[in-house]
């Protein structure tokens, strides 16, 4: 920290100089891995996925940089409006959403087709960070300090669950809880909450899930029970990974991938292509890149002076880590199939933009790590 100035950079050039280039490079590397894997998923062709992934990546990076250059004060001011907007969109999905695979997730607004739940992942983080930034630390464990975050987490996750999208709902809840934890929740409440959850989760599994979600979870517990139905994904995915061995079968040589035994391989199951074609070495390398990204973000968070930036960085990092963990855990058969993409590698525009937007906030936090916006600071105030 000594090499950096203790002041906040103001000019464009200063800010660009302060950009955390190692994180940017790691993200570019992940995007490149994604392009490569999508090239293989199409049996060695740029179309339909690799080229579009690449083309989407460029504006994504641009958005990331713009987000990073904007001052924290701006994002603080935007936190609640963004949250309320995202909440409104989620309600909109309830009524006007487009159904894909039996779940209402997409909203068509003119030329843009989007998943409001992706926006909400970031909106919850910003809203919570803003809330704790404004909240005096001693009030964290007060009734007010508990109920507002409970609403900020509960309302969107309930709407997302109702779409139904269990994966994203879990993601939002866990991320939110992580922020609450980082904000200084007392251990007494943590332990009490833990015990309450131990009772609530079985009840939730029993009554709070759609039939297909429950089936997925049970299939996860015993995939061989239903080898051509719901268990098919998991079985084929495990075969692909396992047969990859130590060094893999070579680029575009994976039979599971190339012979189409893996459904949805370009989206949620893209890690299996990597595992099959590049083996344990390739899989571990990608996990390593993610770990490096995360280690960097934790360091960035620790260096931030303001609560808003710290919690924002850690919240986004948590979401990102959960993405990676749930996705890889899912394809390796450790977790149920819940439909979470592998960030920056899986094909899918909304998720990529959302992730890069999030990293824009992280990089922005790094640039403005010394900024200390006062409590209750407004948009430009």
């Amino acid at each position, binding site marked *: 920290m000594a090499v950096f100035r203790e002041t906040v950079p103001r000019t464009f050039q200063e800010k660009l100089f302060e950009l955390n280039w190692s994180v940017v490079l790691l993200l570019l590397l992940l995007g490149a891995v994604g392009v490569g894997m999508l090239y293989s998923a199409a049996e060695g062709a740029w179309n339909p996925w690799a080229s579009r992934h690449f083309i989407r990546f460029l504006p994504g990076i641009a958005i990331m940089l713009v987000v990073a250059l904007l001052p924290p004060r701006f994002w603080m001011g935007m936190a609640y409006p963004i949250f309320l907007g995202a909440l409104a969109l989620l309600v909109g999905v309830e009524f006007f959403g487009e159904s894909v695979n039996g779940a209402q997730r997409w909203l068509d607004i003119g030329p843009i087709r989007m998943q409001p739940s992706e926006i909400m992942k970031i909106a919850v983080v910003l809203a919570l960070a803003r809330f704790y930034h404004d909240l005096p630390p001693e009030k964290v464990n007060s009734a007010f300090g508990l109920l507002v975050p409970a609403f900020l987490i509960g309302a969107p996750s309930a709407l997302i669950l109702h779409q139904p999208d269990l994966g994203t709902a879990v993601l939002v809840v866990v991320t939110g809880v992580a922020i609450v934890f*980082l904000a200084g929740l007392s251990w007494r409440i943590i332990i009490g909450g833990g015990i309450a959850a131990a009772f609530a989760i079985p009840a939730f599994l029993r009554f709070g899930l759609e039939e297909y979600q429950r089936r997925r979870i049970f299939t996860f517990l015993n995939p061989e029970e239903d080898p051509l139905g719901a268990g098919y994904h998991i079985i084929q995915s495990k075969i692909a990974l*396992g047969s990859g061995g130590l060094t893999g079968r070579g680029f575009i040589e994976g039979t599971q991938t190339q012979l189409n*035994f893996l*459904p949805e391989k370009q989206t949620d199951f893209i890690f299996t292509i990597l595992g099959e074609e590049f083996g344990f070495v390739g899989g571990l390398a990608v996990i390593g890149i993610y*770990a490096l990204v995360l280690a960097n973000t934790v360091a960035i968070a620790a260096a931030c002076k303001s609560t808003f930036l710290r919690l924002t960085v850690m919240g986004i990092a948590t979401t990102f880590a959960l993405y990676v963990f749930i996705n890889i855990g899912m394809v390796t058969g450790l977790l149920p199939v819940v439909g979470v993409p592998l960030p920056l590698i899986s094909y899918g525009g909304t998720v990529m933009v959302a992730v890069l937007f999030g990293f824009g906030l992280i990089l922005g936090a790094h640039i403005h790590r010394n900024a200390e916006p006062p409590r209750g600071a407004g948009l430009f105030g």
Partner: protein
Amino acid sequence: MKSDRQEQQLKFTRRALMMGAGGAAVFTALGARLYQMQVVETERYRVLSEDNQFNFLLTPPSRGRILDRFGVPVADNRDSYRVVMIPEQAGDAEEALDRLGRIIEITPEQRDRILRNVQRAPRFRPVTIRDDLDWGSFAAINLQTPDLPGIIPEVAEIRDYPSGTAFAHILGYVQPASEIDAGNDQLLRHPGFRIGRTGAEAAREDTLRGSAGSLKVEVNAFGRVIRELPEQSNPAVPGEDVRLTIDADVQRFAYERLDGESAAAVAIDVESGDLLALASTPGFDPNLFVTGISQTQFNALNQNEFRPLFNKALQGTYPPASTFKAVVALAALEAGVINTTERITCTGSIELGNRTFNCWRRRGHGRVNLRDAVKSSCDVFFYEMAQRLGIDRIASAARQFGLGSAPEIGLAGVSRGIVPDEQWKLSRYGQRWSQGETLITAIGQGFMLASPLQMAVMTARLASGRSVSPRLYLDQPADQGQELVHDPAHLDIVRDALRAVVHEPGGTSYYSLGGLGVEGVEMAGKTGSSQVFSISAAEREAGVRSQSELPWRLRDHGMFICYAPADRPRYAVATVVEHGGGGSRAAAPPARDILRLLIERDPSAAGPFVQNTHGRQPT
């Protein structure tokens, strides 16, 4: 305030590091999981991956052909164009059929069947949509396959019966195995694979079928074949050909000669027992069954009064009637109850107890010896023989000549017929045998029943004097049997009488035949008419006088047995014409024509008329 802030930052850093450590632990767990799958258990997954990647496709064997005795195929295989649907690839089966329906016709009946099959089978298993398409439709489908996902045009072998109808009863036909037959046999479940259902196709299934091969292929997840690996595959072993003793030309001739009647003809080589023709009319086109007969077509066959699906040559049983008298005559000579000179007076009837037994010739034959009696088919003479022999000796002679037991020719459903005796009647009806029944048995009426095949065998045995057994397949050993008579002179007497039936005035078929029609070759024969209905005195008065005035169903069955040459018998023919009226009129001319063809075709027979016109040698 300041220290408060620092403390808060410290608390945050501590908790952030805790989360970081948690994250590290979770990522380590992922790495460990990958290690377990990709390094420790990789072999297991490699095997599963290969199971996915490679498949063994069953290659059905080519079915053996069925040939006639000269090697002419009568059941063959031809290329058939068909179209199948793989429901998994087709998506909505109804839509796929709609699309295909614009190119080829799919009847509502077929559509129902297809949709039923789609429902029943696993979605990756092909379902036949239409078999045996013409080339035009097939080409049209091929052209449009890009727009028809899951619809696959195929070329396959299908059974073909080039001579169709004339051979239907011998060959039977092939059909897809039923769900029950197929069980778990992948070959039987293979679409388009057919097994013999009836006839020789069924009886010789083991020889004809061959065994399936397997083709190792690389497949993708949809089961589409990416690559074939013939070097790692086993070729199918084609079925063996089966060679019949039948002469295809004679068979066709016999069939056509009888066509229009409900009739049967059997031609047999009296030395080897080879069946040369085994015709039953009307027949049916076995090809219909191969490609799938419609309910209407089947009903038409099944409900036809002439019973085309029934093999009358083997399965039909009829009273042998007067044709049996030759056997009784021989038995009487062998038993010594008659000689060639003794004459019996026929007054047109005899009395036995309180019953009158009529001769077919109401005014009687006068004084007849054995030769006259056979020639003119005198019933009264044989009533006398019946009394002298008794039923046991008559029945035993009948059995010696092949009646009362089913000949083993390697086809299913061959009738045993009936040779009645005291024992038989007791067990069948619980009644005692009566003397009168002996009398009518001796003229081949009453309880006695024989199939045309049995009548042919009986004739062959009379002609050869040996207990020849019929055979249908050339790969089965010929059985020439034992000598049947103690004194060959007795046989000569009966044969001479049978020759007289055709060649001498007064013979029952002298006027209808008068000879074989081949110069220098004489034939021998015996007529028979079995009564289906007695014309009553009342009807006679009412004006119904002859058979031709009766409704078809009530007319007599006509039958005729014959062999030639009369002096050195070689071929025998038996015919039955159901409700054809008398034997001499309905059954004798076709039998004679078949016999003549056999003599003309015989390569070993001497004379200008017996050249082998087809230049082929029997093997």
